[in-house]
C-alpha cells in the first residue's frame, strides 16, 4: 500500500488529497498540519473580520472530508525534515513516517522587515492566518486606530475587513500606488480614490522609519499615532523544508508541469512553489488560490501513479473593496486596449496574436472569457476580437466553438 504524506493543510493539500484519491482509493494519506484548524481558505479571513462569513462557514470542505477521503491529519505539527534516501519524514515531535511520495505544501509566511523600534509596538499583527484574524478581532473589540504597513492585497483586504471595527485606518506603502504588484498607477488611482471615499487614509511613497510604541515615524517626516499595527509588507514562500532535503529552490520550490521537484518522489504545490507563468513563460511564484488547488491536484494524481500536467497557470486575481470589483490576470505586456468607464476601467494587453493580460475595474461581467483567452492561448485571429474587446462574450467566437460549448458536454 502506498504511503502519501502531505506537508501542509491548505488548499493545495486538499487538491493533493483529491488528486491522489482520483487514482488510488487505497493508499494511506497523512497530512501534517501546522495550524490547528481543519482546512480553510486564507483569503476568507478579511471576510471573517468584516462579518461576511463566520467560523462555521469557513471550512473549505465538509466536516467529514478527511474521514471520507481516508486521510489522517496530524494537527499542530511541523515537519522537521524529509529524508529522500530513506523516504521518510521526521516531524518536529520526533516521529518518523515513511512515504512512497510526499507533497510539500508548506505555503508562505509573512515577511516582516526589520524596522527600528518594532519591538516597542504593543499590538502588532500579521494578516495571513485565521489565528491572525482571531487575534485582530480580539484586539479591535473597541474601535481602534489602525496602521497598516503595506498597500498590497493583504494590506488592503485587511483594511476593508477592519473598516467597521476601526476608529481610523491608515495604510502606508513605499510604492507610489496601491496594489503595486497587480495594478498600474492609473488603475490604482481609481481604486485608491474609491477606498479613500470609504474612509481609508493612504500614505504612499512613504514608509515607517521607526516605531516608538504607538507612534510611527514616517520617512516623509510625519508621524502616525495608532493603537493596532498590521504588518502586510509581503509574503515569502516557505522553501526551507524542501531546500533542506536537496530540492532546488529559487524564490519558491522549483517544480515542473507535473509538480515534481528536482528530487524524485518529492512533489510540491501551492504558494511555496515557483512554476511557469503561462502568460509570459517565465518562472514565478503564483501564490493564488486556484493555482494552489490545481497544482495540488496535479501533484496528487502524479504521486499516485497517474499522469497529469498543469501547464496553464497564470497570475489572476478577483478582489473587491467596498463593492468595487477589481480583476486582473496575466502579464501587462504588449499593445494596450483601454476603456474608461464611470468609476472603472478596462485594460487589455495583446501581443503576438494573443491576449496576454488584463485589468478590469468596475464591470467584470464574464471576465472569465478573457482569462480563458490567456490560459488557452487562443489566437485572436480566430475570434472576433474587435467585439470581444468591447464586451466579453462568446458571440465573438465561431459558431462551431459555440456549438461545442453550449451544445456539447464540456
Amino acid at each position, binding site marked *: 500500500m502506498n504511503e502519501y504524506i502531505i506537508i501542509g493543510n491548505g488548499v493545495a493539500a486538499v*487538491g493533493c488529497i483529491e488528486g491522489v484519491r482520483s487514482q488510488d482509493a487505497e493508499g494511506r494519506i497523512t497530512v501534517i498540519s501546522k495550524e490547528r484548524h481543519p482546512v480553510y*481558505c486564507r*483569503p*476568507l479571513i478579511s*471576510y471573517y473580520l468584516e462579518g*461576511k*462569513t463566520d467560523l462555521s*462557514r*469557513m*471550512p*473549505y*470542505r465538509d466536516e467529514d472530508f478527511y474521514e471520507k477521503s481516508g486521510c489522517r491529519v496530524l494537527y499542530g505539527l511541523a515537519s522537521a525534515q524529509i529524508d529522500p534516501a530513506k523516504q521518510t519524514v521526521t516531524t518536529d515531535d520526533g516521529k518518523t513516517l515513511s512515504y512512497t511520495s510526499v507533497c510539500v505544501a508548506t505555503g508562505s509566511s509573512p515577511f516582516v522587515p526589520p524596522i527600528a523600534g518594532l519591538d516597542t509596538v504593543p499590538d502588532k499583527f500579521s494578516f495571513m492566518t485565521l489565528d491572525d484574524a482571531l487575534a485582530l478581532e480580539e484586539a479591535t473589540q473597541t474601535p481602534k486606530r489602525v496602521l497598516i504597513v503595506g498597500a498590497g492585497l493583504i494590506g488592503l483586504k485587511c483594511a476593508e475587513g477592519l473598516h467597521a471595527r476601526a476608529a481610523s485606518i491608515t495604510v502606508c506603502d513605499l510604492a507610489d500606488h496601491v496594489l503595486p504588484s497587480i495594478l498600474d498607477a492609473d488603475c490604482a488611482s481609481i481604486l485608491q480614490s474609491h477606498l479613500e471615499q470609504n474612509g481609508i487614509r493612504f500614505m504612499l511613497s512613504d514608509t515607517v522609519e521607526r516605531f516608538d510604541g504607538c507612534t510611527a515615524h514616517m520617512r516623509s517626516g510625519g508621524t502616525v499615532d495608532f493603537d493596532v499595527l498590521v504588518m502586510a509588507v509581503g509574503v515569502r514562500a516557505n522553501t526551507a523544508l524542501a531546500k533542506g532535503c536537496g530540492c532546488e529552490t529559487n524564490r519558491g520550490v522549483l517544480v515542473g508541469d507535473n509538480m515534481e521537484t528536482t528530487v524524485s518522489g518529492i512533489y510540491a504545490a501551492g504558494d511555496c512553489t515557483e512554476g511557469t507563468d503561462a502568460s509570459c513563460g517565465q518562472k514565478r511564484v503564483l501564490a493564488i*488560490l*486556484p493555482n494552489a*488547488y*490545481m497544482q495540488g*491536484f496535479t501533484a496528487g494524481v502524479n504521486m499516485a501513479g497517474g499522469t497529469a500536467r498543469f501547464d496553464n497557470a497564470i497570475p*489572476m*486575481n*478577483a*478582489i*473587491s473593496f467596498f*463593492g468595487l*470589483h477589481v*480583476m486582473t*490576470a496575466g502579464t501587462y505586456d504588449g499593445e494596450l486596449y483601454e476603456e474608461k468607464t464611470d468609476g472603472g476601467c478596462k485594460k487589455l494587453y495583446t501581443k503576438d496574436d494573443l491576449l496576454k493580460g488584463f485589468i478590469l475595474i468596475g464591470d*467584470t*461581467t*464574464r*471576465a*472569465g*472569457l478573457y*482569462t*480563458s483567452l490567456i490560459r*488557452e492561448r487562443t489566437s485572436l485571429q480566430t475570434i*472576433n476580437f474587435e*467585439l470581444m474587446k468591447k464586451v*466579453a*462574450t*462568446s*458571440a465573438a467566437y465561431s*459558431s462551431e466553438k*459555440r*456549438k461545442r*460549448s*453550449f*451544445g*456539447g*458536454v*464540456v
Partner: protein
Amino acid sequence: MKRVYVNEAWCLGCHLCEYNCAFANSGLQDMATALKGKPIYPRIHIEGSDAITYAVSCRHCTDPICVKSCIAGAIRKRDGVVRIDQTKCVGCLTCVLVCPYGALSPNENGVMQKCELCLQNSCGEPACVTGCPNRAIVYEEREEDA
C-alpha cells in the same frame, strides 16, 4: 446526465428564458408579482451579436474550474450538478474570473448564483427549457464529443 443545451440556430433572442428563470427562482406564485417593476437576476442570459443570439447558462463542466477556484469552498459538484452554497459565498467573483462561459453572475445581494437546473426549486424541469418558444434550449442527455 441531462444538461441544458442551447442551439443558437433557433434562439429568437426573446429573453423569455431570463424571465422564466428569474420567476422560477423567485419562490413566488405569480410572475407579475415576482418580477414587476424590478431588475431581474436570472441565471441564464441571452448573449449575441447582430446576427445571432443564444442563451448562456452553466455547462456543469466535467472538470469545473469554478469549483477548483472558489475561495470559500462554496461551489461543489454533486451528482453531476455544479451548485453554489450561497451561505458560504463571500461574493469575491473569482468564479466569474475563471468561468470560460460567463455562466455565473451575482444576485441582487452580490451573492453568486448560477443555473442549478431548477433542481432546487419547484419546477422539476428547467424553466428556461419549458418556456422556450422555439426549443432553442433543451434539457437532455448528450454524449461527450457528440
